[in-house]
């Protein structure tokens, strides 16, 4: 479940970031390095965008745009920040724009349906009963609804904190705000989620 990344390196040590080294090789025309970056970050970026916009097709379209922008920027790339900070900054920017443009305006309606976008329920060896599956699905829908109701920046902060396990400093750099602002965003977001999901306890 956890999509852990090594967040020990701060922006100041970006020069030691292996991804940044790969990107510098892409800058020098090494296509194989781009393939490595894509392989490593494809799923994290798509999953982040999926949880942001909650539509798989839109998420993949946005993720393609993210990697296209990375590729287009190769000529002017300078490792002034950690590579993933730059990558998620692009992803967040595109996701917030998509939310603002209402590209996933039907999202809320689709939450009421069982969509093919949704991952299949995790079926264990002992198959859950129909009732258990329905409860699980209802719980999942509640969670998705609660996350979708968060303001864009709070949503992005929670998703990076929860699923990417990014540190406050890196989230702050992605969202282009202060570390204390991130703490405030996260606290408000988690409190809102707690209030919305309290009835599930």
């Amino acid at each position, binding site marked *: *479940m956890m999509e852990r990344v090594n967040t020990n390196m701060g922006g100041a040590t970006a020069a030691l970031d292996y991804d940044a080294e790969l990107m510098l090789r892409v800058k020098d025309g090494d296509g194989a390095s781009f393939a490595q970056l894509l392989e490593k970050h494809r*799923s994290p970026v798509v999953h982040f965008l*999926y949880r942001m916009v909650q539509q798989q097709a839109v998420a*993949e379209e946005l993720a393609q745009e993210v990697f296209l922008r990375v590729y287009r920027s190769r000529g002017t790339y300078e490792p002034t920040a950690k590579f993933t900070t730059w990558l998620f900054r692009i992803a967040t920017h595109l996701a917030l724009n998509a939310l603002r443009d209402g590209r996933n305006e039907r999202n809320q309606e689709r939450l009421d349906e069982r969509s093919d976008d949704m991952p299949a329920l995790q079926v264990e060896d002992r198959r859950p009963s129909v009732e258990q599956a329905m409860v699980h699905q209802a*719980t999942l829908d509640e*969670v998705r609804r609660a996350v979708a109701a968060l303001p864009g920046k709070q949503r992005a902060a929670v998703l990076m904190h929860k*699923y990417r*396990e990014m540190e406050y400093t890196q989230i702050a750099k992605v969202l282009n705000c202060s570390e204390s602002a991130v703490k405030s965003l996260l606290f408000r977001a988690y409190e809102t989620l*707690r209030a919305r999901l309290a009835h*599930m306890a």
Partner: protein
Amino acid sequence: MKCPLETREERVLVAYSSRTLDGGDKELLEAHLQSCSACREFVRGQREVWEALDGWEAAPVSADFDRRLYARMQREVSWWQRMRGRMGLVPVYRALLPVTTLAALVLAAVLLERPSPPRVPPQPVTAQVEGLQPDQVVHALDEMEVLDQFNHMMKPDSSTPRM
């Protein structure tokens, strides 16, 4: 340890709930939780949120994601190559030549099309004369005649002795 809820340090509770609080801070908070029901309730609520979020799996990425991406990248590269090939140019400075020429032509056209300041038609020389009335001319001639007579009278006459 002071109560995080009282000191507005809820982030410590959030970090503890997300199991990212380590070391001494974690031990201090756990000791505080023994005696603070408000913080215990806060942590319990946050843990529930955390576990609910754990259950939200993301869908796997489409199998053709890379193929579609590389196709788009290839289209961009092909477009650029087509543009360069169409112009038959290799170095960039040669590509700038037609652009510069076009810009110069546009600038020249703009300057030529610029409206010139309105010209003031020259005043006819006879305008003043035409503006005079006949009686004004007659009056002027009369005055000239008077002046002439006056001058004549003031001329020293050789037969008349000076006073």
